């Protein structure tokens, strides 16, 4: 194995986001201090 071989490796990949990240996202959306309504309709 050389360093050149290593960098050309192709690995399989699966998405696996922890539930806590999704919970944090929802918490942050709920806590958003929204900008006021824009001044133009």
């Amino acid at each position, binding site marked *: 194995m050389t360093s050149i071989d290593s960098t050309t490796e192709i690995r399989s990949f699966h998405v696996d986001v922890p539930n806590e990240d999704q919970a944090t996202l929802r918490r942050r959306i709920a806590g*958003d*201090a*929204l*900008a*006021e309504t*824009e*001044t133009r309709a």
Partner: protein
Amino acid sequence: MSSTVETASDISPFQVDIPDEALEDLRRRIAATRWPSKELVPDRSQGVQLATLQELAHYWATDYDWRKAEAKLNALPQFTTEIDGVNIHFIHVQSPHAHALPLIMTHGWPGSVVELLETVGPLTDPTAHGGDAADAFHLVLPSLPGYGFSGEPTDVGWELSRIARAWAELMLRLGYTRYVAQGGDVGAGVTDALGRQAPEGLLGIHTNLLVPALGGAMPTATDEERAAAAKLATFQQSGNGYFIEMATRPQTIGYALLDSPVALAAWMVDHDTDAYYKIAGAFVDGEPSGNLTRDHILDNITLYWLTGTGASAARSYWEAYGPDAPAAGRQPLPSPTIPFGFTTFPGEIWRTPRSWVEASYPNVIYFHAVDKGGHFAAWEEPQLFTDEVRAAFRSLR
């Protein structure tokens, strides 16, 4: 109150009183910041550097004390009055010297009355600050509509001329029949507009940003003029991202500014190159430039945060400079013929040559190039700035 007219012209005392919960929420949000990775360059060319923002956030969440800023504001006479449908907050300090000249002085973006506070003492009470009673001013410092403790417009049309008309009404309401005006940044735009309107009683104006240079060609015959033009071109090519965003899509950036204190701080710190590196120096190296200290910088950012005015302040650019605003394409009034004074500070976005001032204003009574200070001149060098204001208006008393 017997009539709506009387109600609308009432002037009410005002004190800042931020609840503890708002300060706790601010600290919680700073602690919860999700940081980007470090920029890939050794300078500010990709924007506000990570180390600068992290030092700022750390100081903000730990050592910084808003209550000191609040006490400083509340030590001054503050008022609100409704003008043209918007509640205007202003500081009004009357000089102990009876023959003082009334002066209305306007802050810019990303500033507020905070940037002008250190000039209050020297301008209103010169004898207590090594000056002459003959140079005293009665000082009026309004918060622009949508900024700080002023209300925010609920309809469109609040461009620079409308603000200027409101300022003339404010001075009239305060009983001033002879007065002068001063401004930098957006405040220079308001002051320029006020000069063009030349309301009765306005004796002259002084600015420290040459507004007409932003909108038209200036002479480029000399090395000094070409150097100024090159600096201005650099700003318009790579330094005005904030300007374009706020002039075109203020609502979009507003969501981040209202929701994340660190986003707000980054947006406000990313102004001109000179000011940015001075602010970075204050936080990263502990070496402030003049009065541009960590606490003073955070007083201003915290004011925007606590009043939730990031979006409404951004909209003022849409109104003044945006292509979709009602004022877009409207020709400005002719150059003011009233007396005009100008000071160029070396760290400003461009060093303004005297020839540019004379090409912009027909009645220049004062011009001076000073040796220190930058875009936030009053904030960074309050004593020097005060000396300039005194000198500029001395012949109009």
